[in-house]
């Protein structure tokens, strides 16, 4: 359970985020959507303990984020790619777990890369991987860490639409298998609706939560559901909220 109590973050005089209240249950998939600069990254960093809130507080299972970090319970996937260029895909996946002082599990890492469609590329260095493959490795690395909480900051931001859809479906099935708590930041409304059980809409000046949508889509989520009427309606509703906040 992740709990944000009236969290605010200020950089000097500038209030980036104000008064964010949010509770996220174990195993929930929450997406955060909003315009550029509205404070999505700042909120995610506050949850993961990379940014100390100026006001309010964040807890993960009742502990402070830094305690959760120590226990290796926070898995980050950053927008910029953060694979070490001199390590192979497999070495990169193994590396983070090692840095977290958790017992090594090379075979587990290998198997995970395989399920993520990277078999045959375990020994390839990042330079030899496509953008989509690199993000797959970064996601595998966060999962292999064994953290209960996965924080993803626009992980598909630099990918083409086809790859985004594909990875979106994969993330969903991964989440069903692994039952992690996922907070997923994006500026794409369709992506937020497709992925999340709950979609948090943020606005800026100052960054805050404008509305929260429970996403209810019938049937399993695959590329088919992107065309369904229920999906389109939800997307339209979220869009409306985003645009209304600017009137």
């Amino acid at each position, binding site marked *: 359970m992740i709990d944000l109590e009236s969290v605010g973050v200020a950089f000097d005089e500038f209030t980036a985020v104000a008064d964010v209240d949010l509770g996220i249950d174990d195993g929930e998939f929450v997406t955060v959507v909003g315009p550029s600069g509205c404070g999505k990254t700042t909120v995610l*960093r506050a949850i*993961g*303990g*990379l940014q100390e809130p100026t006001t309010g507080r964040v807890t993960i299972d009742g502990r402070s984020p*830094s305690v959760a*970090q*120590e226990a*290796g319970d*926070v*898995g*980050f996937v*950053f927008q*910029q790619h*953060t694979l*070490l*260029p*001199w390590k192979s895909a497999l070495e990169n996946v193994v*590396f*983070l777990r090692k*840095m*977290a002082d958790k017992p090594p599990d090379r075979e587990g890492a290998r198997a995970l890369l395989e399920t993520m469609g990277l078999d045959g590329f375990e020994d390839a*260095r990042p*330079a030899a991987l496509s953008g989509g493959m690199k993000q797959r490795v970064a996601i595998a690395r966060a999962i292999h*860490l064994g953290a209960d909480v996965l924080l993803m900051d626009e992980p598909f931001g630099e990918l083409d639409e086809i790859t985004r859809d594909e990875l979106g479906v994969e993330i969903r099935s991964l989440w069903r298998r692994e039952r992690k708590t996922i907070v997923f930041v994006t500026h794409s409304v369709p992506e937020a609706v497709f992925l999340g059980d709950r979609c948090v809409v943020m606005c800026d000046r100052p960054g805050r939560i404008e509305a929260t949508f429970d996403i209810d889509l019938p049937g399993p989520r695959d590329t088919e559901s992107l065309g369904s009427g229920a999906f389109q309606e939800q997307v339209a509703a979220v869009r409306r909220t985003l645009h209304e906040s600017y009137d």
Partner: protein
Amino acid sequence: MTERISVAGSGAVYPVSALCAGVALWWALTALGDIPPFLLPAPDAVVARLAGNPELYLVNALFTLEKVVYGGAIGIGAGIALAAFVAYVPWFRRAVYPYLVTVRVLPKLAIAPLLLIYLGTGMTTAIVFVALITFFPLVLNTAAGLDRTPTAHHDLLRSVDAGPIERILYVDVPYAIPDIFAGLKQSVTLAVVGAVVAEWVVADNGLGFLILMGSENVRPDVMLAALVVLLLVGLALYGIVVLVQRRVHERLGLETLD
């Protein structure tokens, strides 16, 4: 800049031809020109000089090499250590970095006579001078290299509560490797320069001393022979650094650009 130390491959054809042409020109100048041999000896006279008394050049090459190796090791070690302080101790960086950058414009050669007064005419002066001259390229390059890690990588390590030692060892240092080698290449070249200058000032032994003596006795053949040996020593040292760099870069999957 491309450097191909190996003579194999078609890439070597042009430089080797140029070298042959240069030596041929030198030889033609001495054979056909009206230059007295005591001013510009023919290439074969220089080779004969080397072959006639190999111990002299070998012994002095070893003296020079000794200064280069000891001084270089100290300068490189101290340079990397100071770079670590510059990179990781903010107040130290603020206090010292501006001077490290400024001192670059100071011709270090001008310090040699001063060292002579402080340290005397022994080996120490030469070693300290070589250390001093090799130190600067390493500090500046290494410090810049240790700064190169993208901040997101630091965030990644923080997110699993990894300590600074782990971060430096596993992330910052590998990122700094290309810069460290860039510094090493500059240092190793300067080390030879430094050793020769020290030998001129201290005037005890070594290839620099041999050149100095050759000059005083107007013996260009001895000077040229010593220069050839000096060139070989410099090339060998540089070649070693390049080879190690290739190996390390290969292991890290980095491209060796220069």
